[in-house]
C-alpha cells in the first residue's frame, strides 16, 4: 500500500479527502487480505459444540425469566405480610436485579434496585415500576443489561427475536399506552466525564431505534450516566422508549427523577443499606452517577 506523510494525513490527505478512498488502495487491501488471512482448520466437533452452546443459551434465558417471575411473586407476597420493609430505617441493602419493585402502597419514591453487572448502579424506582437485570455471558457473547419498565416485566420475556441478533431478546413485547421502558447498557465513551451533565438530561432522539419501534414506542430519549471511575471513560447509556407519553408528561418526570438519583456504592464498599439510598450512599462517600 502506498505510503502517506504525516502532513498529508493531518491536512488534506489526497487519498481520503472528503472521506473517499482511493480505488488502488482498496484493490491492494483486498488482495492483501485474501493472501494474508489464514485458512484455519475446522474442529471436528464444531456442530456439536454449537448445539451445546445454543442449548445452554436457551436454558439461561428460561432461567432468567423464571427467576424474575419468582422474585416478583415473593415481593408481591411480601407487600401483603406484616413487617414488610417499606422504606423505613431497616430497609436493608437494595435488592440486586432481577428484583421487581412492587410498592403500590408507597406514597413516596419506590424501593432502590441495584444492578450488579452495571457497576452496582442503584436506582430508586417510581412506585409500581419493575426492574430486571439480565446477566451477560462472555462465552455466549451476551452483554449485561438492565431494564426498568412502568409495566410488568417478567412475563413479557419472549423467545429469541427475529432481526438483529443483538436484540435477543428485550423483555417487553409492547408498551402500554403512556408506558416507558428504560434500557441500561454499559458503554465506553472517549472523554465521558466531560460529556455528562448533572443532573443527567434526557435528549430527544429524532429517529426511533428498531427496538423502540418493535415496542410500539412513539418517542425515544437518551441520557448518559458517568461510571464510578472517572479515569475509565466507562459509563451507562440510558435509553428511554415511551409510548405516547410526551416530553413533558409526568411519567418522563419520573424517569428524570430516577436517573437524577442514580448512584454507585463507594469504592470497595458493600452495597449500602439505606432508608434513603441516595442520601445514605453520598454520606458514605458513594459516587454520584452524574460526575461533573
Amino acid at each position, binding site marked *: *500500500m502506498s505510503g502517506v506523510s504525516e502532513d498529508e494525513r493531518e491536512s488534506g490527505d489526497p487519498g481520503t479527502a472528503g472521506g473517499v478512498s482511493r480505488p488502488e488502495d482498496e484493490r491492494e487491501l483486498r488482495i492483501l487480505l485474501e493472501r494474508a488471512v489464514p485458512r484455519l482448520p475446522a474442529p471436528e466437533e464444531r456442530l456439536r459444540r454449537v448445539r451445546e452452546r445454543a442449548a445452554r443459551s436457551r436454558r439461561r434465558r428460561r432461567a432468567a425469566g423464571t427467576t424474575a417471575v419468582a422474585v416478583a411473586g415473593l415481593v408481591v407476597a411480601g407487600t401483603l405480610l406484616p413487617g414488610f420493609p417499606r422504606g423505613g430505617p431497616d430497609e436493608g441493602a437494595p435488592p440486586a436485579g432481577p428484583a421487581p419493585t412492587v410498592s403500590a402502597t408507597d406514597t413516596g419514591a419506590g424501593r432502590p434496585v441495584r444492578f450488579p453487572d452495571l457497576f452496582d448502579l442503584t436506582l430508586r424506582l417510581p412506585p409500581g415500576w419493575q426492574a430486571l437485570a439480565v446477566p451477560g455471558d462472555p462465552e455466549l457473547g451476551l452483554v449485561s443489561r438492565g431494564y426498568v419498565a412502568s409495566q410488568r416485566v417478567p412475563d413479557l420475556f419472549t423467545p429469541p427475536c427475529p432481526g438483529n441478533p*443483538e436484540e*435477543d431478546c428485550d423483555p417487553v413485547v409492547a408498551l402500554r399506552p403512556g408506558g416507558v421502558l428504560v434500557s441500561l447498557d454499559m458503554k465506553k465513551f472517549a472523554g465521558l466525564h466531560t460529556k455528562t451533565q448533572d443532573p443527567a438530561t434526557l435528549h430527544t432522539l429524532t429517529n426511533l431505534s428498531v427496538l423502540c419501534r418493535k415496542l410500539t414506542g412513539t418517542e425515544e430519549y437518551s441520557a448518559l450516566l458517568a461510571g464510578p471511575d472517572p479515569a475509565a471513560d466507562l459509563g451507562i447509556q440510558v435509553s428511554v422508549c415511551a409510548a405516547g407519553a410526551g416530553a413533558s408528561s409526568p411519567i418522563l418526570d419520573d424517569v428524570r427523577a430516577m436517573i437524577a438519583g442514580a448512584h454507585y456504592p463507594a469504592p470497595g464498599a458493600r452495597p449500602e443499606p439505606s432508608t434513603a439510598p441516595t442520601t445514605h450512599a453520598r454520606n458514605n462517600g458513594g459516587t454520584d452517577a452524574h460526575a461533573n
Partner: protein
Amino acid sequence: MDPGDGDFEAFVAARGPRLLRMAWLLTGDAHLAEDLLQTTLAKVWPKWHRISGERPEAYVRRALVHTHASWWRRRWRGEVPHREVPDAAASFDAYESVDLAQSLAAAVRSLPVRQRAVVVLRYFEDLSVEDTAATLGCAPGTVKSQSAKALRTLRAALPVPVDGGERGV
C-alpha cells in the same frame, strides 16, 4: 435433529471456512475466531428455519459482526485498541504468510471496532458500501468515512504494497 438441521450443516460446511477467516480478521486470533464463529452459529441455529429461506449468509455475517462488537464492549479491559500501531517488522516478505498475517492482524486490531468491521465487510467479504451499511445498521456515508479512516491507518501500518512497490513514508 431439528427441522432444517441438514440445511444448517450444509451451510456450515460450505461457508464455515470463509466465516472463520472473517472471524480471524475481526479477532486476530485463531482460538478467538473459532469461539466467535461458534457463538454466532449458536445464536443463529435456533432461528434457522426462519432465516434459511432468505439470505442466511447475510444474516450470519451480520450476527458475526454484531457478536464481535458485543464481545468488544464486554471484554474492553482485555482488548484496548492501540493508539499507535505496533511497529512493522523492518524486513518484510509479503509472501511469508505468517509474517504477513501477524502484521495484518496487528494493523487491523489497531483499528476501532467499527472500522475493523468495515474493513472486513468491504475489503474481505467484498460487500458494496450499501450492503456494508445495511449489515452494520448505519448510513452509507458512515461506511465511506470509516473506510477512508481505516485505509489511512492501514496504509501507514502495513509496510509493503502488495504489488511490490516501495513504501513512501
